[in-house]
């Protein structure tokens, strides 16, 4: 066995010499001749007979050669060499195939790697599809929440769920007090929480029921990141006592590295929730603390059934809410995936659709290129077959070529995918879940590779398999009608697909333009916002804070080039602002509006300079006056929108209004023009500005933002501001940002989406145009002779031009019409991404086809020009 193997290996590495065989056969022949002469045949005749008996030497040599182990490898190498020679001979063709494949593979892989986690990949929980998020939603809070009182009631009375467990809403900052102090995020969940998700701790154990009780022992679990980072992965961390916010706590478990809160928040330290039913009935106005609740459906129960079963509990609880809140509360039960990614799912699907269209175009391109190559090689194949090549060998050759191309395409494609993914992650705004952790998905890389390989092979093989008729040998080049038709339809399809892509991208671009151009109702160019976080232990009364901020205000007013220094608790157009319900607003001497109608009103506390700094015009009445800040009268300014809703037919100035949550009598002193305050893409809310007075009550909150409007550029004013703050208290942390930049950050997400989709649309367009050009150029070169004959018979250059252009234009028009139809039919998919643009935006649907025609025209004219330049004499002689 071993010797046999060794022999094989020896011959594998040392092929026999060619003359060895020749000598051996020569000897054989000589012996045969000698034998015949020995029985009396003449030497010449003997030689003749011997040669006849002998038969074909070359075929024997080949057969002997084929006995060699590893012979097939040498044929593969031969095929590869042949293919590479072919590539070199026709580099443009090879480059277009490889580039097309690379773009298709690269783009698809990168995008799939991004959307995979959002749309397809299993969530990292056991039987995650049975876990739901349940609770109430409200116009101000779109993620399910439950108040403690209702949670306890639902948990006891529900039927559709196996386990129900809660975590606290959002992590809160907490301090790890030790020699190496750190600020951490703390959160709490119930003992049932981890088992619900099928998670067990990496080290230690979960909370015990007796620890998850009021006044239970102070124990905590810590995150993997904290364990690795702060505690250096100490294996003996369990039962260690640490000090959180001044109180000792015992570590009982470490969460696994893969654990992810279903709310996608991150926290370092987890306390048991220790719900106290008695307290949940009394605290927070009898509602209890808000929490996030998750539950596992019992087997066979659908989300709809669970919804129907929980509905009565929800309805029963509504009686606790004021009438105004009732109509805005809804019961919501969503799958975990929807809870995590619902708002990015539309973008993810659209992105996927876009990139699949690009892949389709790329595949069509490859197919079309391969068919062109096959057609032009029909004669070569026929010759090879006639010379005795066997069919399987030709097929193997075609496969080798397809494989080489796919391989080259895949290598370049993976490089493109890596780059694209890096660019995505770099450009991506915060708030798109999972994007930053996205990594190259090899499964999909392999899938796209196989797809493009199959695509190239099928069309490459179609020709190798075709039984060539004898006519092929004679014909200079024949392109059969059915194949020409197939290629034409492929190009038409490509054009249609690129129209769909382009119109989608164009609508997004238009929408983005609208977002950028929209009138915010205020100037942002010169304003720098300054936030100062005062440490609560030194500024522990509102009086102290007020004193600091007022000192800072007068210091900032002394800055060179200062125009205005305003103070506000929030700043439009996006981010946090003090919203309340329209129904809670009332006008003195008028009955209350119907509860639960009118949506929300934005509320902002401002100083008089706020309107000056942001250049918001007061269109009626007056601005707050500086001396009013020291007065006792509570004053407010309404936005134009709010004024027209509250006082449709009266002059609001001088009226007394108030809202339920306190201030009964606030005098309206003026009306300010509307400001965009619902984010960049949402409807603006009606708004009420309250005067921020110099009384300590007004300074109890921790949101204080200075708006510094200066003639000096932001970059040079910032060091001044810093030094002013440092002169008051050098320990307080300061955050500064030009308002313009804040606003621009709000547009990050639409900008990202638009850039991404536009990129793919143009990739698709490029591929389609290359496909169109390639087909026409090929057909023109195939028709050189025909053109020559036509010209010899008197066709003018214009005739030739129209002959070729006509062909191209027909494909463009057919593809354009088809694409436009599909685009119009599918543009509704984009609705959620569009801002102030109709899904049938006429501009888009006129400009995109025009653009495509223009580009296509170039792709048509280049080969048409080549056709016009055909010299009839040369073309005919070429026969």
């Amino acid at each position, binding site marked *: 066995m071993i010797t046999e193997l060794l*022999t094989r290996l020896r011959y594998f590495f040392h092929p026999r010499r060619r003359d*060895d065989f020749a000598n*051996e*056969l020569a000897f*054989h022949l000589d012996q045969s001749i000698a034998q015949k002469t020995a029985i009396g045949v003449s030497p010449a005749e003997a030689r003749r007979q011997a040669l006849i008996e*002998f038969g074909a030497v070359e075929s*024997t040599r080949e*057969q002997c050669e084929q*006995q060699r182990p590893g012979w097939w490898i040498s044929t593969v190498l031969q095929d590869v060499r042949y293919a590479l020679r072919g590539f070199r001979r026709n580099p443009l063709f090879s480059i277009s195939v490889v580039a097309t494949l690379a773009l298709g593979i690269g783009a698809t892989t990168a995008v799939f790697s991004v959307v995979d986690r959002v749309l397809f990949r299993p969530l990292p929980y056991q039987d995650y599809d049975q876990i739901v998020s349940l609770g109430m939603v409200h116009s101000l809070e779109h993620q399910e929440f439950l108040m403690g009182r209702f949670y306890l009631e639902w948990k006891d009375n529900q039927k559709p769920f196996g386990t129900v467990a809660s975590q606290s809403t959002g992590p809160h900052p907490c301090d790890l007090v030790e020699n190496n102090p750190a600020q951490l995020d703390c959160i709490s969940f119930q003992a049932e929480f981890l088992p619900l998700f099928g998670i067990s701790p990496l080290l230690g154990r979960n909370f015990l029921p007796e620890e998850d009780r009021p006044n239970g022992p102070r124990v905590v679990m810590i995150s993997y990141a904290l364990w690795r980072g702060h505690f250096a992965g100490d294996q003996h961390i369990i039962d260690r006592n640490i000090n959180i916010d001044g109180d000792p706590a015992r570590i009982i478990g470490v969460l696994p590295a893969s654990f992810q809160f279903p709310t996608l928040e991150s926290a370092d330290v987890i306390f048991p929730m220790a719900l106290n039913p008695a307290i949940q009935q009394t605290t927070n106005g009898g509602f209890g603390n808000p929490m996030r609740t998750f539950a596992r459906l019992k087997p066979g129960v659908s989300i709809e059934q669970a919804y129907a079963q929980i509905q009565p509990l929800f309805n029963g609880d509504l009686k606790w809410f004021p009438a105004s809140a009732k109509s805005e509360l809804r019961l919501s039960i969503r799958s975990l995936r929807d809870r995590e990614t619902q708002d990015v799912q539309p973008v993810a699907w659209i992105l996927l659709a876009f990139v699949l269209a690009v892949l389709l175009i790329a595949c069509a391109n490859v197919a079309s290129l391969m068919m062109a190559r096959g057609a032009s090689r029909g004669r070569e194949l026929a010759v090879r077959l006639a010379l005795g090549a066997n069919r399987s060998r030709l097929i193997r050759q075609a496969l080798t070529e397809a494989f080489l191309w796919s391989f080259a395409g895949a290598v370049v494609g993976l490089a493109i995918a890596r780059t694209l993914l890096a660019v995505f992650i770099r450009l991506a705004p915060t708030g798109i879940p999972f994007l930053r952790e996205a990594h190259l998905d090899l499964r999909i890389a392999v899938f796209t590779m196989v797809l493009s390989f199959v695509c190239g092979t099928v069309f490459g093989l179609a020709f190798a398999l075709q039984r060539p008729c004898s006519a092929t040998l004679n014909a200079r080049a024949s392109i059969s009608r059915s194949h020409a038709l197939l290629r034409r339809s492929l190009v038409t399809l490509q054009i249609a697909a690129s129209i769909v892509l382009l119109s989608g991208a164009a609508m997004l671009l238009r929408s983005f333009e609208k977002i950028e151009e929209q009138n915010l109702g205020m100037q942002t160019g010169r304003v720098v916002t300054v936030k100062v976080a005062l440490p609560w232990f030194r500024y522990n009364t509102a009086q102290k804070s007020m004193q600091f901020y007022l000192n800072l205000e007068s210091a900032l007013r002394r800055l060179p080039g200062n125009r205005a220094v305003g103070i506000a608790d929030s700043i439009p157009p996006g981010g946090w602002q003090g919203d309340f319900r329209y129904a809670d607003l009332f006008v003195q001497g008028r009955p209350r509006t119907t509860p639960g109608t009118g949506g929300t009103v934005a509320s902002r506390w401002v100083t008089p300079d706020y309107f000056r700094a942001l250049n918001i015009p007061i269109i009626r009445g007056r601005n707050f006056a500086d001396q009013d800040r020291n007065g006792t009268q509570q004053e407010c300014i309404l936005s134009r929108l709010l004024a027209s809703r509250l006082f449709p037919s009266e002059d609001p100035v001088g009226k007394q209004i108030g809202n339920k949550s306190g201030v009964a009598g606030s005098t309206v002193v003026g009306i300010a023009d509307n400001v965009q305050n619902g984010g960049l893409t949402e409807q603006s809310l009606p708004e009420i500005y309250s005067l921020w007075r110099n009384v300590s009550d007004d300074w109890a909150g921790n949101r204080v933002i200075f708006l510094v409007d200066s003639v000096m550029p932001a970059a040079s004013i910032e060091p001044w501001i810093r030094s002013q703050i440092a002169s008051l208290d050098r320990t307080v942390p300061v955050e500064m940002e030009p308002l313009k930049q804040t606003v621009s950050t709000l547009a990050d997400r639409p900008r990202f989406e638009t850039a991404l989709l536009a990129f793919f649309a143009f990739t698709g367009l490029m591929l389609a145009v290359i496909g169109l050009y390639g087909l026409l150029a090929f057909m023109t070169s195939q028709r050189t002779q025909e053109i020559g004959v036509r010209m010899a018979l008197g066709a003018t250059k214009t005739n030739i031009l129209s002959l070729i252009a006509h062909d191209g234009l027909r494909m463009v028009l057919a593809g354009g019409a088809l694409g436009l139809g599909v685009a119009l039919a599918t543009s509704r998919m984009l609705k959620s991404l569009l801002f102030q643009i109709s899904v049938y935006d006429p501009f888009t649907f006129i400009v995109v086809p025009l653009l495509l025609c223009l580009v296509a025209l170039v792709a048509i004219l280049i080969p048409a020009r080549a056709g016009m330049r055909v010299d009839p004499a040369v073309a005919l002689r070429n026969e």
Partner: protein
Amino acid sequence: MPESTDLLQGTLDLLILKTLAVESMHGWGVAQRIQQLSKDVLQVGQGSLYPALYRLEYKGWIRSEWGNSENNRRAKFYRLTATGRKHLETELATWDRLSEAIGLVLGRAAEASS
């Protein structure tokens, strides 16, 4: 010339091995020997002889070396290797069993028809 009989590849291999088991020989010699021994029934053309010799050599059953022929010409001689000899024995045993079995079947068939 007597009609030559087509040989199955495996049979040809067996014949070559058996021939070489007696003494080492060149290709021409092998062909001649098979023809003689079969009383001119089996004629092995070079077209099938040499591929078979090469195949057997690649399998390591025979080995070749250049030497001088009877009439003092350079010729390539093949000889059986140890593995080749072992293989020949198993092949012969298989052949015997097979031909006996076939003989039995054919013999019975002949009896039944007579």
